[in-house]
């Protein structure tokens, strides 16, 4: 039996994560990372944000928003190191760090999202 490559699955996660990151991160980052801290716009109250996050749609949204872009990072960063630094001999270490990091991040995200009161 020939060994099947994981590459198509990893590429698919990279690609879908890239779409999610491109569509959703700019607005999130602008609001929560720039506009609210600088006082350009009024930040939502604790209760309002909790109400958004705790519903089923909010939870699924948060999982998609966090997990898919992590796999996008893992795949792209892996090849950045591969092409940019030509550290082929560290391939296994790099892969473990990238995909392992994304898997740990996905577990943490799931744990947190389940715990939203």
């Amino acid at each position, binding site marked *: 039996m020939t060994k099947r490559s994981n590459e198509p699955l990893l590429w698919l996660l990279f690609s879908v994560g*890239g*779409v999610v*990151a*491109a*569509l*959703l*991160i*700019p*607005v*999130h*980052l*602008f*609001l*929560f*990372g*720039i506009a*609210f*801290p*600088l006082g350009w*716009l*009024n*930040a*939502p*109250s*604790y209760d*309002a*944000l*909790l*109400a*958004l*996050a705790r519903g089923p749609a909010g939870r699924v949204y*948060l999982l998609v*928003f*966090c997990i898919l*872009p*992590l796999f*996008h*990072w893992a795949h*792209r*960063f892996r*090849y*950045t190191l591969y*092409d*940019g*630094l*030509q550290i082929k001999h560290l391939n296994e270490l790099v892969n473990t760090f990238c995909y392992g*990091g994304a898997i740990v*991040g996905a577990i*943490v*995200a799931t744990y*947190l*999202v389940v*715990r*939203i*009161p």
Partner: protein
Amino acid sequence: MDQISINAVGRKELTTYTEYPPKGYRVRISTYWWLGRWAYLKFILRELSSVLVAWFVIETLLQVNALIAGPGAYQDFQGFLRNPVVIALNIISFFFILFHAITWFNLAPKAMAIRLGGKRVPAILIALPNYAAWLLASVIVGWLVLRG
């Protein structure tokens, strides 16, 4: 084991036998090859945008964690987000991720060569739905977050 072999031209060559056959001639490329040309640097910068994507996911998870911990912890986290270093990092991330988004959306016409009536549909018309989806998603998220 070294062995002398004679090639087609009749010159003597020192051939080294290794466990695997040699992969052929390869030009050694500098580790800093991507600094040589703007297009290469742009490629590496685009690839590095993924690091800032990961950073923002972590920031979002910290925010969810603060949300779970209660209003006090949530206020503390807002203080962390007001730290000038964090704001600076977020502004840099914002530009990197815009770069990612624009290059990503502009890829669609390169991947899909659609022809209508024998003519290729202009790239902008294929990229346009991506930008429309981006605008729509941003408006919906903005509306949900800001009405609270």
